[in-house]
């Protein structure tokens, strides 16, 4: 028997598979986040999609992200909008300006809500949710 049994105990939403974004999710699994970049004009874009809105090229390449950025905004959620998060409240979610010029929304660790500030430097980290899914999180830089 090969080890391909799906993880049936994970009770949070899973990202639907998407050809355009597979390299991004694979990079998280590798704990080395990569971002989509236009292979022609070099514009970095996120979330992954097939066309560069700057030069309309459909040629893509994937660059290793610095994983560094600054807090743009945040919310502290006290209500479980999905039963899978009932045990994780309050949930601290930050929107982060990555140094590459795109943003990521993810949970933040190691910072109390009243410590959050716009512009605060953070770095990406990785949490393996299942054997097939790794999610990004942020920590103070």
């Amino acid at each position, binding site marked *: 028997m090969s080890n391909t049994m799906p993880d049936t105990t994970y009770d*949070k*939403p*899973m*990202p*639907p598979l*998407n050809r355009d*974004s597979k390299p991004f999710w694979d990079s998280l699994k590798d704990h080395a986040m990569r971002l989509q970049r236009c292979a022609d004009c070099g514009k970095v874009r*996120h*979330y992954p999609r097939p066309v560069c809105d700057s030069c309309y090229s459909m040629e893509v390449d994937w660059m290793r992200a610095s994983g560094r950025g600054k807090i*743009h*905004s*945040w*919310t*502290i*959620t*006290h*209500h479980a*909008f*999905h039963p899978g*998060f009932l045990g*994780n409240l309050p*949930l601290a*979610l930050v*929107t982060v300006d990555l140094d590459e010029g*795109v*943003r*990521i*929304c*993810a*949970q933040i660790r190691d910072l109390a*809500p009243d410590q959050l*500030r*716009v512009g605060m430097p953070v770095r990406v980290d990785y949490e393996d*949710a299942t054997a097939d*899914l790794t*999610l*990004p*999180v942020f920590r103070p830089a």
Partner: protein
Amino acid sequence: MTSLMDKCAVTGIGETAYTKNSGKSVVALQMEASLKAIADAGLKPTDIDGVIPYGSLEVVAEEFITNLGLQDLRFSAVTPLGGASAVAAIQAAVSALVAGVANHVLIPIGRNGSSGERIGARAAAMPQFRTVGEYEMPSGNIAPPQLYAHMARRHMEMYGTTSRQLAEIAVTVRSNAILNDNAVMQKPMTIEDHQNSRMISDPLRLFDCCLESDGGAAVIISRAEQARDLAQRPIYIMGVAEGHPDSPSTITQRPDMTTLGTAKAAPRAFGMAGVSHKDIDVAEIYDCFTYIVMCQLEDLGFCKKGEGGDFVSNGRIALDGELPINTHGGLLSQSHIIGMNHVCELVKQLRGNAGKAQVANAEIGLVTGYGDMGDGAVAIMRN
């Protein structure tokens, strides 16, 4: 380019009872509202030759043909802009009417949003939410109160906006609902009540969030020359426009997350109408969240970006203020009928039959829709 100004009018409106549990099917609610609107206009069901069903609910154009016995439906479309759909549908209806494609366009909305499936349960399945579904929901950023909380927090940090300023909106709109027999929420609310309501997704508290409701509402749009021969005083559509924000599928990637599609629609609607902000006697602003009202008031140009908190304070938006808003109680306190209740209320205000919440001498008014993380639509009407 042909101007659409004053070429069409709202000729009929219909609303069901707004409740927490209708005991009726969604199709029945939409048909009841539609029949009321048709009767209000003084039309027969078979006069309807255009329909714009709400794109995200199960009631399609075929249901209207079948239930209303329509013999020759000549125009149908959907305007899938979430809560901006109702006002965006007015633009689509006016375009079709001026082009001569149809004569009387029905725009129905109705839902069991309280007793049936809730918004949060539905959002993940909507194509407009695919991007959020893939990249943000797995981390727990799932429902509109959370998605919009990032916008509200950014506004607060950039401009010093406070939760007490958002409370001004909730309290004002509640006081209007109390004047309305067809409003779900009838208990008075104070600023302190708002401040003591439980935190949902900081900075948005329970009383910053709208209701989820059962009910139906519908309007009929007709060309002006036909409107004058119908049963009601025509309420002319002076200007109408829709606008889509930058990065429409995710707020996270939006260059300025404090600006909505409303900012693109508003100059077009005001330009078409040929009026200025001072001319607006009453405004029905889509109020899924208090913050979204404040942000739209800025994007509409009633004040500058960042000044919304001050603008909504000191009674300016109250019934006897400079710009009365949401005179029916809005989504926050009347009912969440996806903003079609806002369109019906503006028509009532301009007909002069808005009951205890009637704004004296209301001649020109504005209604907005907002939805799907940033889509905006604006209509300006006159009597």
